[in-house]
């Protein structure tokens, strides 16, 4: 019988590392050190598109204290082996795979060319300065729409379009013709940088059994397979060990430092350490895809959506990385959480000589949310209808069919969410000056949680009781900072009826912890939580059955709390957990269990038009903001922010709020200031002086309201919240700016300058 009364789940219980994080006591990947450690640095391209005419590493090699200087010639398999990182299932092959080190051509500014390891970081830096390189520049292409033209320079092969997805439902032509109102607009979104506090970092060493150990900050433990493939050695001889992560947001989903570390330690047989510099985090790693989105949406005069047509174009940078999957995500989510009878979407991801783009919290969901929710407000204005009412008429209901013909499997609590969000803004603030204008906006979103179902996602977990009634969980899920480790700890403790601090979780060691997949795609709680729940329930069942024996009662009547097994029917029937464990041990009954949770499995997508289910389920939510616009400078201040999300079930309230607040802050940054700018592929915002993320002075205290439909596919009805928390922030801000000063915000971020010129235009017309 599934446990119903909870002591730990749904509380605000502290985790084991929160206080230490505040005090600076947590040991992060970069803090690890071993005797005789070398320091590794990467020499990167200073051109966005060029042939390498000459590369001379002799002087670098000759420098005293330099242990190895490696080029592509030293990399056994130089193309990253798989298209989908950390994935056991291989899906469709694509060209444009990332090179570990550039061969004769560089395709973006910052592309790795040489890797060095030296006795000190300073010597490694000096060695980089001694590398001589000559380039011959090639024509580059920096705008995805230019890159789609037949005569555009090609980045790889003969076509820059590396992915194309579509939706076809009903007849949009006819539906637009019959619509009472139609709104149309073109939207643009920025190239957002993950800007996590902890840079990519780690330490690698070859142990006395010839295994490469890599202890580093990653979202994907299974990258050991990629490392093995690059080095051409068995997967069993690469071991990855995770650490507490200081933020990732998708930035640590693709390969980062692990291959460089492995190459250098394999070559020198010494421990090697590396951490990206902040600048390298800028120009050396992927970002969020900038999109151009052309939307046309129609409705009847009483506010029923009739049709939606969209063209989505994403800039995938110079290598494929996860661009096709991000684009797929955008395509399916492009309708918003609305039932629309006629839909036509065409989406393209296009190679350019810009910095690569890949996974980032939201995974293609944010760009389309900005467009579909701006469209909804535009429709409301045109229909002269309350934007809340308009949305309520169109929200999906449980069981409705999406535009990829998938039925919504869980509750859609958007009516409640939008009402609560708007209400929670409270009374409207007074402007702080005579040229200030206050406005309000909100936006609704949907985000799937869990990986795409054709990837056949699984997660395993092991739970075992000790003789004193404490427990150990082994589950290969890195803690990204969201408390992933803490959630499975809570689940095991709850089901086994033991205090939180008597459960220890070993969370990431590829050769010790059962593989549980990536901490990406808002899947960690859903997958590893379910796996741990299965394993803990198996152990619980053994205990309850043995206790039923001992108490001469039925196992169904028994529960465990505070290490006591008791009957809910007869109060005198109880026995200490420890006694049951001892009995099991005496009788040779195992009180350990390894189990595997399987998500929904579907067939591989074979056509560009998506006509089949792709996702497990969705999280729905609303964000509302109040902004003040300075009409003299164009600067926008967020005065209030509310996020309401149906998380299905909050395993821990505090950490759920943490995700909602953090997602909102990152979403507000995307809305107002974050954009990684390049001029002809050369970055101009590669440090945190110019690449601006919101500070505590830019973000108001956020009000996070948790709804719990208990209808999700995660443990105890949980849905996911990591990504959904970010999505609706930007369109809420755009709608609020329009409310304040009557301008359309079509191009994010809404920087002071953009708002200033829109205000001038409005003034003149």
């Amino acid at each position, binding site marked *: 019988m599934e446990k119903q009364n909870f002591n730990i789940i749904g509380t605000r219980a502290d985790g084991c590392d929160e206080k230490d994080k505040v005090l600076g006591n947590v040991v992060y990947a970069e803090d690890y050190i071993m005797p005789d450690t070398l320091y590794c640095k990467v020499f990167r391209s200073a051109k966005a598109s060029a042939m390498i005419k000459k590369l001379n590493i002799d002087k670098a090699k000759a420098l005293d204290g330099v242990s190895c200087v490696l080029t592509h010639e030293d990399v056994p398999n130089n193309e990253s082996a798989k298209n989908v990182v950390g994935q056991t299932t291989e899906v469709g092959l694509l060209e444009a795979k990332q090179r570990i080190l550039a061969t004769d051509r560089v395709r973006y500014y910052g592309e790795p060319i040489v890797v060095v390891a030296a006795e000190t970081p300073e010597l490694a830096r000096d060695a980089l300065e001694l590398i001589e390189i000559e380039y011959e520049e090639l024509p580059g292409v920096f705008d995805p729409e230019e890159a789609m033209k037949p005569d555009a320079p090609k980045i790889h092969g003969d076509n820059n379009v590396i992915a194309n997805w579509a939706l076809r439902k009903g007849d949009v032509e006819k539906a637009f013709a019959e619509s009472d109102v139609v709104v149309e607009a073109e939207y643009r979104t920025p190239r957002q940088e993950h800007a996590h506090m902890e840079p990519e970092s780690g330490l690698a060493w070859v142990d006395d059994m010839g295994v490469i150990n890599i202890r580093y900050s990653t979202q994907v433990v299974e990258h050991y397979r990629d490392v093995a493939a690059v080095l051409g050695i068995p997967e069993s001889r690469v071991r990855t060990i995770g650490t507490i992560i200081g933020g990732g947001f998708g930035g640590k989903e693709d390969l980062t430092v692990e291959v460089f570390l492995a190459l250098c330690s394999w070559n020198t047989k010494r421990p090697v350490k590396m951490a990206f510099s902040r600048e390298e985090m800028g120009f050396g790693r992927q970002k969020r895809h900038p999109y151009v989105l052309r939307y046309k949406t129609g409705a009847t005069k009483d506010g029923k959506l009739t049709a939606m047509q969209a063209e989505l174009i994403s800039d995938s940078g110079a290598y494929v990385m996860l661009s096709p999957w991000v684009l797929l995500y955008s395509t399916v989510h492009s309708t918003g959480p609305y039932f629309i009878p006629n839909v036509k979407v065409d989406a393209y991801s296009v190679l350019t000589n810009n910095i690569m783009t890949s996974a980032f919290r939201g995974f293609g969901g944010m760009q389309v949310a900005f467009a579909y929710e701006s469209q909804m407000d535009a429709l409301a204005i045109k229909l002269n209808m309350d934007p809340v009412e308009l949305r309520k008429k169109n929200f999906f209901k449980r069981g409705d069919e999406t535009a990829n013909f998938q039925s919504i499997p869980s509750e859609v609590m958007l009516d409640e969410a939008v009402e609560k969000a708007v209400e929670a803004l409270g009374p409207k603030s007074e402007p702080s000056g005579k040229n200030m204008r206050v406005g309000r906006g909100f936006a609704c979103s949907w985000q799937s949680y869990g990986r795409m179902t054709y990837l056949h996602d699984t997660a395993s977990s092991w739970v075992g009781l000790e003789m004193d009634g404490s427990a150990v969980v082994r589950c290969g899920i890195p803690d990204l900072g969201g408390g992933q480790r803490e959630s499975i700890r809570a689940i095991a403790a709850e089901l086994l009826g033991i205090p939180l601090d008597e459960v220890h979780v070993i969370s990431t060691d590829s050769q010790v912890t059962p593989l549980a997949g990536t901490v990406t795609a808002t899947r960690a709680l859903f997958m590893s939580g379910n796996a741990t729940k299965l394993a803990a329930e198996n152990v619980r069942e053994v205990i309850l059955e043995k206790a039923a024996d001992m108490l001469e009662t039925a196992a169904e009547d028994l529960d465990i709390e505070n290490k006591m097994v008791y009957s809910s029917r007869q109060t005198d029937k109880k026995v200490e957990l420890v006694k049951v464990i001892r009995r099991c041990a005496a009788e040779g009954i195992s009180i350990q269990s390894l189990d595997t949770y399987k998500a929904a499995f579907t067939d591989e997508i074979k056509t560009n038009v998506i006509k089949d289910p792709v996702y497990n389920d969705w999280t729905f939510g609303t964000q509302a903001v109040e902004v003040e616009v300075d009409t003299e400078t164009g600067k926008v*201040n967020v005065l209030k922010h509310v996020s309401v999300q149906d998380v299905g079930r909050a395993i821990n309230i505090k950490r759920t709020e943490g995700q909602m607040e953090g997602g909102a802050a990152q979403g507000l940054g995307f809305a107002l200031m974050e954009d990684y700018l390049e001029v002809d592929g050369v970055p101009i915002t590669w440090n945190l*002086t*110019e690449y601006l993320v919101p500070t505590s002075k830019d973000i108001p205290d956020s009000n996070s309201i948790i709804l719990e439909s208990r209808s999700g596919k995660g443990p105890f009805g949980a849905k996911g919240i990591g990504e959904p928390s970010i999505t609706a922030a930007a369109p809420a801000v755009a709608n609020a700016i329009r409310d304040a000063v009557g301008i359309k915000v079509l191009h994010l971020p809404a920087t002071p300058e953009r708002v200033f010129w829109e205000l001038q235009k409005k003034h003149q017309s």
Partner: protein
Amino acid sequence: MRNFRFLQPDSVSTVLKAKEEERENGRILAGGTNLLSYIKMGRVKEGLLIDITRLDELKQIEDTENEVSFGASLTITELLNSSVVQNRLSYLHDTLTHFANPLIRNQATLGGNIADGSPIADTIPILLVLDATVTAASSKSERIIPLKEFFVGPGKTVLAADELLVKVSVPVHESSGVKMIKLGLRNGTACSVTSAAVRVEQDNKKLREIRIALGGVAPTPIRAYNCENALLDGLFDIEAAAGAELEALQQDINPISDVRGTAEYRRGVSVNLVKRALRSAAGMEV
């Protein structure tokens, strides 16, 4: 390759002797919030780093009837905490609260902000409207330089290779209204896109004296002389001044386009900043 030496002198005269010997190669290290980033970026690769942060001589505040003087090594936090700044130069206090963030303010010095020669250094526009002067010393002599004559170009000042900036003197204008406004692209820790400071002396609602200074609109921080004169020549009353179009300002400024904004935006927005600063300095509704 980097090649640095380090000197922690115990007196200003040792600093000046080192500067005399090393000249450009002797690099004054105050808070290091600029210098260390130049080193990290590889813009500065060698030299003698002369740490002046421990010299009490450069940390003094002299409070006289007409003028307050600040030692060059005072940090922004020390200025914010100084009762003289809070009471006699409250507008300077207000300006400094928008400087960077608490961590940087604990480190950054007033002398470093001025000597660095950045067109967007945030203490400059307000010091310009206050008619501040700086004192430069070498082992041979000392001279007083009006701040408005101090800047030559981006990162360039009139300081000679053997000179140290030792003191900043700020006249106290008891009857003036003063306001500086900084426009950054976010609220905390932002470089200025443009900044404007205004000081007005009014007499029965008539404008008697006006100083306007801006940052981020020219190769150096500037005084807007054309704009000042246009306002005074018009013998405006204060209301009219605040409502004026300030067309003359466009002759004072010569902004560039960069990562933080276009030249056109700086032209447009600096007018609005000056107007707002003027309204505030004149005690009108902002």
